[in-house]
């Protein structure tokens, strides 16, 4: 199948795809509407709209049923699956894909690829297996840090875009690399918060702020988000979405943790949209009325003086 940027990404097989994919099937543990999803503020990726800004990974869970319950509790509408874990010969017989809730957009990833060429090979397998041209590009030659190789990631993005894929690249938190990936035609950039699986939070915060400031495509903070407050922080500083896996999968109660991340992501997004007040030092008092307000009472004062009182901005 072909994939273009104007086309909505396919969803998992049980329900037809639609632009706003917020519906879970009857019988699932939670019903839509029990989370304050920001319906009037959709996330737009490659022409498709999503009300949830939390993406979930499917690795490291104790079992597929628990993973499924966590996915549902997270309200995630995009779920990434490692193609190296998918076994087409076992489809319907306990493969991970059988447990992704219906209506969720599948985002196959190239985890395990060490080079751009291996990523292309895997992506093509995924396109054949999952029927989607959507792919999360991961090129991680170092099995210890699983740090993305910036050179091979850029080269892989160019190869995959040329092959018709809609590419969401996991990348180093580097503002220039992010721009280069965007120029290469990627649908998002996905900079890491800290090493994948480390649960160490936004160690790359300054770089992510710079990426957000320059990006023309959605910025999805991927990797390292360890607790819900990390997700909220990423959203507050302007990330468009977050992707979480280990923090949910290895929590003592993954379902509750998934729900906590859903709430934190919404809270962070709302906090970003609301516009925060300027941060002050601990001993700085904030005057509640303009310091120069007295000027208005002085003789000869012009009508423009009132604009001095903007401190609440």
């Amino acid at each position, binding site marked *: 199948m072909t994939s273009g940027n104007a086309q909505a990404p396919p969803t998992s097989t049980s329900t037809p795809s639609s632009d706003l994919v917020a519906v879970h099937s009857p019988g699932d543990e939670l019903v839509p509407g029990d989370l304050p999803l920001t319906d009037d503020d959709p996330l737009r990726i490659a022409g498709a709209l999503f009300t949830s800004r939390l993406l979930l990974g499917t*690795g490291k869970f104790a079992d*597929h049923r628990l993973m499924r319950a966590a996915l549902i509790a997270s309200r995630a509408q995009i779920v990434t699956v490692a193609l190296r874990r998918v*076994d087409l010969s076992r489809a319907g017989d306990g493969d991970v894909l059988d447990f992704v809730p219906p209506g969720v957009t599948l985002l196959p990833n190239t985890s395990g690829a*060490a080079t751009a060429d*291996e990523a292309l090979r895997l992506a093509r397998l995924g396109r054949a297996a999952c029927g989607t041209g959507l792919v999360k590009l991961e090129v991680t030659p*170092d*099995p210890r840090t699983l740090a993305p190789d910036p050179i091979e990631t850029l080269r892989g993005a160019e190869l995959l875009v040329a092959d018709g894929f809609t590419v969401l690249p996991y990348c180093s938190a580097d503002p220039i690399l992010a721009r280069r990936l965007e120029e290469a035609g990627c649908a998002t950039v996905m900079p890491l918060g800290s090493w994948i699986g480390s649960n160490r939070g936004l160690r790359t915060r300054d770089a992510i702020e710079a990426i957000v400031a320059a990006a023309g495509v959605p910025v999805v903070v991927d990797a390292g988000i360890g607790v819900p407050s990390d997700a909220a922080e990423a959203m507050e500083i302007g990330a468009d979405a977050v992707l979480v896996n280990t923090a949910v999968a*290895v929590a003592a109660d993954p379902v509750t943790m998934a729900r906590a991340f859903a709430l934190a992501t919404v809270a962070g997004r709302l906090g970003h949209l609301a516009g925060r007040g300027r941060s002050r030092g601990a001993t700085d008092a904030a005057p509640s009325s303009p310091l120069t307000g007295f000027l208005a009472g002085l003789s000869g004062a012009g009508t423009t003086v009132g604009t001095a009182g903007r401190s609440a901005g």
Partner: protein
Amino acid sequence: MSAPPGLFAQELERLDVPGLSAAAVETSPAAVDGALARLAVGDGAARGPAGLADLATLLAPAAGSRLEEIAAAARAVTLRRFGRAVRLFAPLYVSNACLSSCAYCGFAKGLDVVRRTLTPAEVVDEAAILADRGFRHLLLVSGEHRLEVSPDYLVEVVGRLGPHFPAIAIETQTFSDDTYGRLVAAGLEGVVHYQETYDRSRYSEVHVAGWKRDFDRRLSSFERAAEAGVRRLGLGALLGLATDWRADVLALAAHADFLARRYWRTEVAVALPRLKPSASGFPPVVDVDDAAFVQALAALRLFAPDVGIVLSTREPAALRDGLVQIAVTTMSAGSSTEPGGYTTPGQAQEQFSISDERSPDQIAAMLRANGYEPVWKDAFPLVDA
């Protein structure tokens, strides 16, 4: 003619592993506190000689009373790095023909046992049974017979199995020519060679004759394999061969660490098989009891957080079930150690007798019951079929 010492052989000389092991015997409780505190961080920063000294401390008898704490720290590191997932693989013995005489091995040259080398077609038949059982990760095992299990034979077998198994590794004789590269081109992912013991003099005592007698050829084989593009390296020491088994654990840890640093694209896994009864009749010179064994694997996990730890069916079920929750990340299941043992059991000599005789499905069920996902497939084909 012996091979020249490789890169790790030179490092091993500098590390003085027997000295570290001997010093650790005198370990005080306070030293255990310090070593555990440093290694329990689990960030892999405690490497090099200082990290090895800490590992020696945690291996020492004095740390035995702290086993529960060491295990808890190891469990936390394993969960964080590997998640609730255990990789499953199956050994496929392709041949028990052997030109090496190793005192402890049931395949040793000269032993009067029934020999068999599977044809490539018979290997495919064996593999089909393993595929039916769910396996997608295969380990092809043989004795050391460079004529019966030749490079051409292995290239053909790997090529024929490739379309059905995304992860194929070999545990055969070592190679000094371009064989590793040819096998990688055919789709090989991993190479397993156990050094058995890192003690040179003990090594030469038990490896009586044949290619395997060359300590340095064997020790440097991973360097050649990694240079040739092999993605996964499996190391091991056979506990019970050398009296100072802790020194072998230390050397194994140093070897894994050396390879992971130098060949940064490769994944490294280790195994600590304990010597089992075999047709050789060779008695272990030291008994590593279960508690000491668990202590060793947990301490290894803390020293090398990213290194896979493999546990085979030679260990009993209860021990395997317990160790999955502490340090082990890869297991075999339902194994036969006899060439042809899955299609035509009982027709050739097995290498050793297994202890955990549960079926792959039973192992998978055990993992799920313990809160772990059995991972049958965690790889993708590296070459086109």
